[in-house]
């Protein structure tokens, strides 16, 4: 199995504080890994370190075969990160967002309508400005963008937050489809019950190390 994430004794600091204090973990291709841990455990920092947004101060870290210590940005084009913010523009519609991302960072042949339909953004809703959407609809738009980009590694921070039951089911189905298409998914969530439905493995982090 190809290792998509390979962290060995990784230390990463936020404002001088060691948010990751020697984390060792491996994620293999095709896994859907649920990252759990109490608030402040280092879950979000782990996801951001995987995306190369947080520098690795010590240890070794490889993501998609790229050494993050030497090249923090090399793997980014193959990674999709959805954090607490959705990364959307209030005055653009869901369709315009997906079309923009397909044009700028999407995979060849990516289908705007298919991505919108997968997240149940159809009809007038797809053409509604994001600023006039509910929190759940905005989250689904951000997920549709991620879907259209066809990232190899999905990093999701609380992806179920703000979604209704139907949208959560759609998200879980989307994650499974992404996995079946060859992607690897790592997501942090406090919703253990929901997460166990879709995850193939759980990674526990506490105090910046794997528990």
């Amino acid at each position, binding site marked *: 199995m190809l290792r998509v994430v390979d962290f060995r004794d990784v230390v990463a600091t936020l404002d001088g504080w060691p948010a990751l204090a020697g984390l060792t973990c491996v994620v293999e291709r095709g896994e859907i890994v649920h990252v759990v841990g109490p608030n402040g455990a280092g879950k979000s920092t782990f996801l951001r370190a995987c995306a190369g947004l947080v520098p690795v101060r010590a240890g070794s870290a490889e993501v998609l075969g790229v050494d993050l210590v030497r090249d923090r940005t090399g793997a980014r084009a193959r990674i999709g990160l959805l954090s607490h913010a*959705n990364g959307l523009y*209030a005055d653009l519609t869901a369709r315009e967002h997906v079309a923009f991302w397909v*044009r*700028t960072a999407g995979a060849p042949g990516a289908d705007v309508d298919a991505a919108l339909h997968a997240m149940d953004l159809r009809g007038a809703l797809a053409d509604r400005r994001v600023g006039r959407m509910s929190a759940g609809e905005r989250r689904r738009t951000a997920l549709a963008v991620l879907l259209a980009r066809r990232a190899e590694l999905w990093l999701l921070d609380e992806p179920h937050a703000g979604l209704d039951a139907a949208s959560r089911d759609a998200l879980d189905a989307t994650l499974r489809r992404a996995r079946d298409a060859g992607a690897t998914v790592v997501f942090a969530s406090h919703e253990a019950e929901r997460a166990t439905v879709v995850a193939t493995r759980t990674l526990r982090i506490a105090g910046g190390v794997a528990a």
Partner: protein
Amino acid sequence: MKGGLVWAVAARDLRAEARARVTTNQVLPFAGLVMVTFALALDREEVLQRTAGGLVWLATTFSLFVLVQRAFAIETADRALDALRVAGVDLGRVYLGKSIALMVQLFVLECVLVPVAVVLYRVRVDAPGAVLLVTTMICATTGLALVGTLYGGLTVGGAGRETLLPLLVLPVVAPVLIAATRATESALRSGGAAVSEGWAWVGLLAVFAAAFGIAGTLAFGALVDE
């Protein structure tokens, strides 16, 4: 696709602006008020005719700050710029795209401000002067937009960026203000200036724009990523 990214970013920013209408509903009235206030403050026709070029470019520069703040407010409101960073998108091309969008907005603004100056300050433009004036507008606007976008990226997310931006940008755009004012004075024949005298200033504006275009494209990614 690489050239496509520049135009996609420019089109996205212009579409967002067309819907929010910040330029038409806020910036344009603001710039108009600046022009009127200058007219009231100076209150002498010969002084206004002599300084018309400078007043147009001062009003444009003040408006630049509002437009740059807006251009980066849409990037930070929901961390959209972070999303571009994380996706490994070439930020140098994002810089060019955002600069083009800003350039278009500034140019539209100037197309209103110049006729306002003609009416309010009672200046005249003949055909050779109009050619020089339009060329000056294009070159100066390009320089202002490139500098504004670069420093907008530098201050994005920083504390007190609203006040920091003018403090950083004004000294840098001083050569643009001076050259654009001199060229516009020649175009309007203020103080007996000849049109031919203005073209050297246009050359300076073009060099400034080219230098900042190259420097900004190279530096923007590193500035935003830190």
